[in-house]
């Protein structure tokens, strides 16, 4: 157990954990909400930069007498966040630098400044140097205020206020944000105050970052901002779906991460980031459209269709020539023949395969596609006769009825360049 968690085996321990989870999940939801817009606007690294850069603001505000998590400290940190963006622009233009270089200079410098301030003052004030990096989620339930007869942690209240503010702001300005995110130039031309919309997003990022800073620390807040949103982007296509999925992933991941940290006695902030990462990996693998599994299955299905159609066409051609079809050679070809027999497209014994009427229709369409394509290539591509077969062997699996009709109309009565008949459309 963590040193902190050790003392919890008394009554109310579960309530303590519940408050910690509720706080973390609230912060994660706020971060995922903002993070969605950051990800679609390609501003993900801004979240990383702000997470580092707000530290000196928080440190100075706490030194000046604010208590961590109070509105004063929040305001100071958000101001520092906006100052960071302004400083980055200043450094960038002063040094004629790229975006990355300016950001790299400013956020590392500010974070270093914050660490020095906190370390120098650690003995005097209520700021622990390590909480800059890990957050103090485990301590959140101990600092409470009474609301009615309920002891509510301050951290939860400020997280809930941040989430409420951001949700309200998001609902109020959603259309403007979406318009700006997808086409800033068109939005500007249409009279949208693009600078104000972007500034609002920056302020929202700073707010979410500060809320996250207390819970998971300076570095891991970027995981809460970006990872659920990036996973959601792989899972769904529409932006408002993406927000909802990102928030859901963030909340679930936070709860699981906290429980995993409890189980294996590790930093809650670290485990939450790890679980969010696993969710992203799961999205990469399982996404319905272009997840690895879906893409792999799609390729397999295609390879299988090609295999089956080639077997059908081989038997049809053998019948046409009056010879015996070449026997299936490889294992997969045998499997394909078995499948075609099972689905009623082949009849008869192995070795003496015959096409059923359904199989014949399918085979004729494959051969028809093949020979039409050879005819078209022969007329239009001026390829020698022996070069027509390979491309047709590939294209035969891809032509639909409408396309075959058009090609037939174009090649006219010329027929197959090798002299075979082209089967009519079914």
């Amino acid at each position, binding site marked *: 157990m963590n040193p902190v968690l050790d003392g919890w085996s008394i009554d109310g321990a579960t309530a303590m954990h519940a408050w910690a989870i509720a706080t973390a999940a609230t912060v994660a939801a706020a971060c995922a909400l903002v993070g969605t817009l950051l990800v679609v606007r390609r501003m*993900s690294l801004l979240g990383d930069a702000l997470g580092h850069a707000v530290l000196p603001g928080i440190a100075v505000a706490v030194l000046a007498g604010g208590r961590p998590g109070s509105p004063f400290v929040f305001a100071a940190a958000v101001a520092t966040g906006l100052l960071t963006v302004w400083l980055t622009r200043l450094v960038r233009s002063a040094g004629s630098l790229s975006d990355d*270089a300016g950001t790299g200079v400013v956020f*590392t410098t500010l974070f*270093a400044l914050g660490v020095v301030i906190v370390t120098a003052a650690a003995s005097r004030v209520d700021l622990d140097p390590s909480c800059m990096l890990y957050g103090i989620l485990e301590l959140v339930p101990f600092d409470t205020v009474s609301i009615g007869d309920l002891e509510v942690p301050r951290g939860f209240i400020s997280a809930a206020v941040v989430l409420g503010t951001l949700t309200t702001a998001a609902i109020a300005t959603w259309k403007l944000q979406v318009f700006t995110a997808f086409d800033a130039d068109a939005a500007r031309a249409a009279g949208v105050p693009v600078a104000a919309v972007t500034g609002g997003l920056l302020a929202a990022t700073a707010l979410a970052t500060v809320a996250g800073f207390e819970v998971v620390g300076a570095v891991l807040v*970027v*995981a*809460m901002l970006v990872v659920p949103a990036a996973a959601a982007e792989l899972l769904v296509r529409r932006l408002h779906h993406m927000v909802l999925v990102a928030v859901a992933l963030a909340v679930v991941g936070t709860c699981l991460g906290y429980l995993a940290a409890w189980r294996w006695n590790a930093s809650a*902030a670290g485990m939450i980031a790890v679980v969010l990462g696993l969710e992203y990996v799961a999205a990469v693998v399982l996404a319905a459209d272009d997840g690895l599994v879906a893409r792999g299955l799609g390729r397999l299905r295609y390879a299988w269709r090609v295999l089956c159609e080639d077997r059908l066409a081989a038997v049809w051609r053998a019948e046409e020539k009056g010879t015996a079809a070449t026997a299936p050679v490889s294992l997969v070809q045998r499997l394909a023949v078995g499948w075609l027999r099972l689905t009623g497209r082949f009849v008869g014994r192995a070795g003496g395969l015959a096409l059923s009427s359904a199989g014949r229709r399918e085979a004729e369409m494959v051969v028809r596609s093949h020979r039409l394509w050879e005819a078209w290539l022969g007329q239009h591509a001026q390829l020698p006769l022996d070069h027509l077969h390979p491309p047709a062997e590939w294209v035969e699996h891809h032509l639909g009825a409408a396309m075959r009709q058009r090609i037939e109309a174009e090649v006219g009565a010329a027929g197959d360049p090798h002299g075979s008949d082209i089967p009519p459309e079914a």
Partner: protein
Amino acid sequence: MSPTACLAAAPALTHNTLVVAAGVAAVGCAAGVVGSLSLLRKRPLIGDAAAHTTLVGVAAAFLLTGRRDLPTLLTGALVAAVAGLAALVLVRRFTRTRDDAATAIVIGVGFGLGIALLSGITARGLPGSAGLEQFLLGHTAALTVRDAVLLAVVSAVAVAVVLLGLKEATLVAFDADFAAATGWPVGLIDQVLVTLVAVMVVVGLPAAGAVLVTALVVIPPVAARQWTDRVPTLLVLGGTFGLVAAIVGVAVSAVVPRMPTGPLVVLAAATICIVSLLIAPRRGWLARRHQQVTLEPPPGMRRLR
């Protein structure tokens, strides 16, 4: 104040302290040189993802070997840094996640895994686990002479590689399309550069820590860029600024108790950078202000592209 005078101010100045300071200075210098190239290639933050995944390697190396000597831990860190970069490549190759989000994911999740492992090790109080957190923010006081020699040798090799491939790297940095068209293996040259940055990030860990080590490869080159439009001068200045920043950081952290080295090195580099942005001839703020007043066209405002 000269570096030597700075060191002389430190208490308990021993042969050991001097050697360690020299090793860390070599790292700062090499990081400045390598960083100058990645600044020219317009990829200054390329090491950030690698830097944040190094913690996983440090923790895993300790868990697997039970040892905590610097070569073991840094080998683990290097493997993890390369794995982090590989993860970045895989995400780019197999998903439609964009580059910025991919980098942020590797930073966040890699660092989270590192923190989780480190906190797990600390909570279990494994023998010899004390001090692993020093890789978060940098701590040079515990380095031995052998460690310092290792850091210096790796740094020297990195600088040698840069010097050997300088012509090719410059060509790729200035016009990658032309380089590819004339038959240079642009991809390979870029990979070597990325590997060099990863190596510098790893040997920079004792000096600056995982969170801030990126600054070693970013800030000194940015400062150097203000003073010159020539690549060799840029490398020399970048290396010099990195060296000075590293020595100042080590010296100050030796004087101030409990202060991690990394932030001090970064602040020293940032001071050099701010001064450069203000007073550098032609590109500096003061010089440009003057030019605006006299309405003269800025003669030296050439941009490296």
